[in-house]
């Protein structure tokens, strides 16, 4: 009755979106002007052409805003501005590093499909129910992806096999899809099994009482996915993120006693596989070198491949990108060199893995801190929706917790790698990094969050 007397308005969201659009447009124009200036041309004629991409971005953000408006809900006005501000930072930086072509690719392959998927979820929130009902086929497809990638995948310049290329279509990175399908599967599994704590069948081995066989499924699933990722794709980042997600979702879903058992089983399985791998198979040299480079990026120790010296030191090889990242961050200082006035091109993979370092160089630590705060606000808002859901909606709650943890751990791992406070692993920074498929999945996740958030409105207060 409190709500019904007022017409739902989303004023603060609209206001914030106006300002995030302003930031996108201003940033884009500054990059375009600086690019012309570097070549000694007059910047003015190039500016009108640089208006279209940020305007598209703002139009997309306002599209989602209008979609929420048509649902007549007032709830959750923070997520959308936060996401659109992050998207603005990402797009401006990709334009700076990869030029108009790279930014355009990001828009057509990631932003537009992602916005369409997100608005579909916002306008038809019952799609979440559809996902719940069809979890098994969806996650089966999701789990096929790493296998398909392992077989048909394209090896990129870092030696990791992450992208799937089918026919004439552009190669797509599958790792985000795999993570989202793990989240969906675990949410479904825990929703189905988690409540039936009393009176379930157990295996009894003497005094050791284990849960029924089906409680091993998540552990086995995770271990096999992780092994596949590690062995076939040399993708250590995926293993780390999957591990985080697995532990976080089991912890959120099961009561403590059951969590300890199930996570313990998963841990023991993982240790067994690790032992087998350690004896039967060389740890990929990529991972060894990354760890050595983390300990000392400037080390002059020679790296070895399969026991043979290569004549390349760590400082020249795997440490190089970390050095460049650190140099870039230091060069940026507090306020940055100014958009277009730094030299982030020295950082390898500046637009995808190291985009945080590129942002820090040109916009400074001041904006870097804002980005981290934005991610924290995003995580808090997602978890808030998850916790306020009515009792009984376990699937939706766990789905949201998984999505929030997915976004946040990616940021954590990648920012940690960029600042060299943890070993570098190649994952994307959500909403910022170049990579169409990843951005699409991240926007889809935001669509799911906003679809589920609408349920809070109809809850009797």
């Amino acid at each position, binding site marked *: 009755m409190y709500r019904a007397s007022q017409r739902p308005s989303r004023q603060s969201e609209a206001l914030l979106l106006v300002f995030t659009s302003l930031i996108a447009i*201003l940033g884009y124009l500054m990059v375009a002007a600086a690019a012309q200036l570097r070549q000694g041309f007059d910047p003015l004629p190039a500016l009108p052409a640089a208006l279209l991409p940020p305007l598209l971005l703002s139009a997309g953000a306002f599209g989602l805003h209008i979609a929420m408006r048509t649902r007549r809900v007032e709830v959750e006005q923070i997520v959308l501005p936060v996401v659109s501000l992050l998207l603005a930072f990402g797009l401006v930086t990709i334009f700076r590093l990869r030029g108009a072509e790279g930014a355009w690719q990001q828009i057509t392959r990631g932003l537009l499909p992602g916005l369409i998927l997100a608005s579909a979820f916002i306008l038809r929130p019952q799609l979440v129910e559809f996902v719940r009902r069809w979890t098994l086929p969806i996650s089966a497809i999701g789990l096929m992806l790493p296998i398909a990638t392992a077989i048909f995948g394209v090896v990129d310049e870092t030696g990791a096999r992450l992208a799937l290329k089918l026919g004439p279509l552009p190669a797509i990175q599958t790792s985000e899809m795999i993570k989202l399908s793990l989240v969906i599967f675990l949410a479904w599994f825990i929703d189905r099994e988690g409540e039936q704590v009393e009176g379930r069948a157990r295996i009894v081995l003497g005094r050791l009482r284990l849960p029924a066989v089906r409680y091993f499924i998540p552990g086995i699933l995770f271990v096999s996915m992780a092994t596949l990722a590690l062995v076939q794709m040399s993708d250590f980042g995926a293993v780390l993120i999957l591990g985080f997600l697995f532990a976080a979702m089991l912890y959120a879903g099961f009561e403590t006693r059951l969590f300890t058992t199930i996570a313990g089983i998963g841990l023991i399985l993982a240790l067994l596989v690790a032992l087998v791998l350690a004896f039967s198979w060389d740890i990929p040299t990529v991972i060894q070198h990354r760890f050595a480079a983390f300990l000392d990026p400037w080390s002059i120790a020679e790296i070895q491949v399969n026991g043979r010296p290569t004549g390349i030191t760590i400082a020249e090889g795997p440490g190089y990108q970390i050095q460049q990242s650190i140099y870039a961050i230091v060069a940026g200082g507090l*306020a940055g060199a100014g958009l277009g006035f730094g030299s982030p091109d020295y950082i390898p993979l500046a637009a995808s893995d190291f985009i945080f370092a590129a942002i820090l160089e040109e916009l400074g630590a001041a904006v870097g801190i804002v980005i981290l705060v*934005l991610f924290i606000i995003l995580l808090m808002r997602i978890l808030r929706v998850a916790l306020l859901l009515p009792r009984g909606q376990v699937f939706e709650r766990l789905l949201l917790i998984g999505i929030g943890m997915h976004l946040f751990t990616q940021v954590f791992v990648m920012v940690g790698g960029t600042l060299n406070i943890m070993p570098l692993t190649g994952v994307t920074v959500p909403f910022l990094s170049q990579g169409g498929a990843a951005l699409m999945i991240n926007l889809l996740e935001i669509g799911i969050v906003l679809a589920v958030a609408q349920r809070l409105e109809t809850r009797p207060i």
Partner: protein
Amino acid sequence: MDLLAWNTLLFALKWVLIGLIYFVLLLLLLALRREVSLQMGASRISVPVVPGRLKIINPGSDLNSRAGDILNLQPDTSFGTEVNNDIILKDKYISRYHARLQWDGANWWVEDLGSRNGTFINQIRCTPKTRQLLPIGSHLQAGDMIFELLD
């Protein structure tokens, strides 16, 4: 405009951009604060159907409750961990069908349904399967959870 002037303009714009970003962050935090206070206001405005509400003082190990939450009571309200109770409380030490609260038109009564760890009114244990008076403002304890009865 010559190129040097452009250079100066872009360096000035850098500070404008940073200022704008921080302004948006400020707006975001204000919106965040407003939304939080709106939500708290809403729970204060809510009108109970019958003259009885339980305020959670200590949520125990029930993850769905927070201290300060208000539970609205119906004239006959049962609680416990099982799903077909009127109020489901998942505290570790609450039984499946723990107790029920009844309104007789003037007073609230508590009946312990034979719970394992008992129900306490102002820290005095209730006799199982017997109706006992629950005065307004008194503390009701079940498991680790403590409630205060509000009128």
